[in-house]
């Protein structure tokens, strides 16, 4: 195609990289030039997708890297570096036709061999997302621009089609800065020192919305808060205790006090949110969320598990008189409201007599603490959130709840193991019949509700604040905020007194 399309190195769940551009239909006429300043919330410690799938990091490398296919606002998969693809009838062989004439940043041609290398490397070196590639055998370059993926079992989570346009990006450069404090991000945006930022404090949003030079976009996300329960730690291996913890949490109260009643919604299914393939409302009739707040029930479950306040100190003890005291690992500002949610967890669990000690770790230390295997992990509870960037339940099924996904390999930090869950996950992973696959997903969710491997918490809404002179940047429910084709209205900038 054209030589202005240069590509860079990198890889992730379905991809490899190149810099292309598209012009989208607009009312205003896009302008070239200018630098976009974008304030991110969390610090990034690795931009290598093989080791870090952090959504913030993804948001950075997606400026420099590109995928084989993209997901648009409607969560539909559209061609990107791959022009088209075909799937064998048994869904074991996928063939991608690649765009021709694309080059990496250093001038190396982007071809089938490069794509195959990325995926074979991911398998050989057990990249963080390796369990998603379950059944993946190898990738081969069939010709210069055609690559085939071979699977030992059918891989159902791949699909559809649309057209895209290309062109030169409008911006001269994008500057990404890290500002961990949401209040600071909000005021930087108000002063016009940055053009866009994410993860605003929900209590600040009404104020920002009242500002005519600022545009705030809020979209529901697939990111659900949850508390990892370390099943290696007694009594978290006991299902009644785990259920009691789930019932003890006033989720509506969390939404109200931490997210201003608007920055999060009550979850309707475990881990999977609306917008994800195979989503089913798993609530019982008349309930506002899964595991609705029910203190009496929680206390009863604790009692059934053998925990009662025997010495009247306000905390429960087991039959031998040992007080139940657990630590809770959390970050502060890694995801909006995390520290506040942690404090509320501490309070709600105290109501059922469980002492929780909060350990706040800064991002790097937290990241290290939660990537250890079952014998080394030091946390009893850890507050995290789970987003599904692929909008397909295959990701949590293969990465989160599978026995083989126990840390340090996947992301099963609970060290949760269930034969039934494993069986359903594998079935859904290779089931090609959509109705059947959805049924497996539903059974998997029902099984999760029976086992309560984690404490299920509300689902976040994402927000993006930007100055109104910035056009054509996007916010996706998968927690990506692409702006490679954004442009700045210089005149409007000047009017607002912003000169850079």
């Amino acid at each position, binding site marked *: 195609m054209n030589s202005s399309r240069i590509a860079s190195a990198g890889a992730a769940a379905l991809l490899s990289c190149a810099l292309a551009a598209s012009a989208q239909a607009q009312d205003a006429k896009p302008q070239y030039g200018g630098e976009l300043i974008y304030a991110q919330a969390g610090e990034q410690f690795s931009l290598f997708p093989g080791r870090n799938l952090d959504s913030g990091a993804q948001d950075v490398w997606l400026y420099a890297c590109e995928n084989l296919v993209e997901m648009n606002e409607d969560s539909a998969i559209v061609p990107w570096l791959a022009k088209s693809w075909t799937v064998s009838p048994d869904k074991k062989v996928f063939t991608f036709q690649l765009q021709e004439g694309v080059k990496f940043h250093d001038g190396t041609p982007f071809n089938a061999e490069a794509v195959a290398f990325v995926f074979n490397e991911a398998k050989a070196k057990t990249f963080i997302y390796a369990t998603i590639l379950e059944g993946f055998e190898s990738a081969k370059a069939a010709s210069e621009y055609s690559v085939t993926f071979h699977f030992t079992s059918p891989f159902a989570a791949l699909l559809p089609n649309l057209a895209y346009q290309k062109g030169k990006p409008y911006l001269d450069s994008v500057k990404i800065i890290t500002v961990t404090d949401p209040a600071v991000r909000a005021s930087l945006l108000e002063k016009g020192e940055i053009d866009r930022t994410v993860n605003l*404090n929900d*209590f600040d949003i009404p*104020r920002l919305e009242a500002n005519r030079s600022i545009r705030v976009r809020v979209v529901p996300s697939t990111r659900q808060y949850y508390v990892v329960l370390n099943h290696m730690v007694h009594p978290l291996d006991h299902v009644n205790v785990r259920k009691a913890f789930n019932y003890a949490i006033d989720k509506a109260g969390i939404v*109200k006090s*931490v997210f201003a009643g608007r920055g999060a919604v009550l979850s309707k299914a475990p881990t999977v949110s609306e917008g994800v393939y195979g989503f089913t409302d798993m609530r019982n009739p008349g309930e506002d969320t899964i595991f609705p707040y029910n203190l009496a029930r929680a206390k009863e479950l604790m009692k059934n598990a053998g925990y009662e306040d025997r010495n009247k100190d306000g905390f429960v003890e087991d039959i031998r008189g040992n007080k139940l005291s657990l630590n809770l690992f959390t970050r502060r500002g890694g995801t909006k409201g995390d520290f506040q949610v942690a*404090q509320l967890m501490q309070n709600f669990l105290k109501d059922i007599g469980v002492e929780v000690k*909060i350990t*706040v770790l800064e991002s790097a230390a937290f990241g290290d603490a939660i990537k250890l295997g079952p014998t080394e992990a030091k946390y009893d509870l850890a507050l995290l959130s789970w987003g599904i960037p692929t909008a397909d339940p295959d990701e949590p099924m293969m990465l989160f709840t599978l026995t083989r996904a126990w840390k340090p390999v996947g992301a099963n930090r609970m060290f949760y193991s269930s034969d039934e869950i494993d069986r359903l996950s594998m079935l859904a992973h290779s089931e090609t019949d959509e109705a059947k696959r959805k049924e497996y997903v539903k059974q998997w969710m029902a099984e999760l509700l029976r086992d309560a491997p984690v404490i299920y918490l509300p689902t976040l809404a994402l927000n993006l604040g930007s100055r109104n002179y910035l056009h054509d940047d996007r916010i996706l429910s998968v927690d990506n905020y692409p702006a490679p084709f954004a442009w700045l209205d210089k005149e409007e900038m000047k009017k607002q007194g912003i000169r850079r």
Partner: protein
Amino acid sequence: MDFLRRYRRDKVGAYFGAILLLLYGVALTAQWITPADPMAINLNEVFAPPSWRHWLGADQFGRDILSRVILATQVTVKITSAACIFAVLTGVTIGMFAGYRGGWVESAAMRATDMLLIFPIIMLAIVVVVVAGPTETGVIIALGLAQAPQFIRIARGVTLSVKEELYVEAAIAAGAGRAHILAHHIWPNISTPIIVQATLTLPVLVLNASALSYLGLGVQPPTPEWGQMLNEAKDHLITAPHLIVGPAAALVVFVLSANLVGDAVQETLNPKLKKQK
């Protein structure tokens, strides 16, 4: 008695001394005088503004801010007093011994002290807290250790001059042991500058304790601390400005009183200083 009589002459010192005593009174009786349970969450009163029910309003979890400020006073007083005692005990012991013993012990102790003095106090405290853990004990050790070098230097300095006094020589001649001399002859004669330094250190400790907890390294929630409350308040400075009033006012009043009392004590015990002014 004589000290009190002379101290009272200093009007500013007297007034702020009374305020400081009042704050200590609040700290000692915190459990009984809080109008509401400082830990009780009420999610129906999130960010409630000041009212008769909540004089200083309620925080993000609907907890009564006044009660939290009162309990935080106790936490602060406990931590800073303990840290002050810790600093005095370690600092004076090392300083006195180094000054009296002299030789390589003194050199080693003083060089080590100089090393500690290179680092800004808060920096040193942060390092210690990170190592010892953000518990009450950890914070006390951190703040105390960070202040100890001051006391080592002062104790050593005055010990150097006092040990040359005739009564010390007399005690040696009478066969007194080193420990006896340090306790009965040196300490009583160097205590004045130490007491002055201790009162001057108190406000610094209060500020540092708040700084640590502001950074999330102090006592951990749900226990309230002024710095931690200020940190929470700053996130909602525009939405709920009343959050910042209580802890900020308490911090200002405490630090100001402690500083002025420290000055007054210094002037009372050191009349020469006053004349120089």
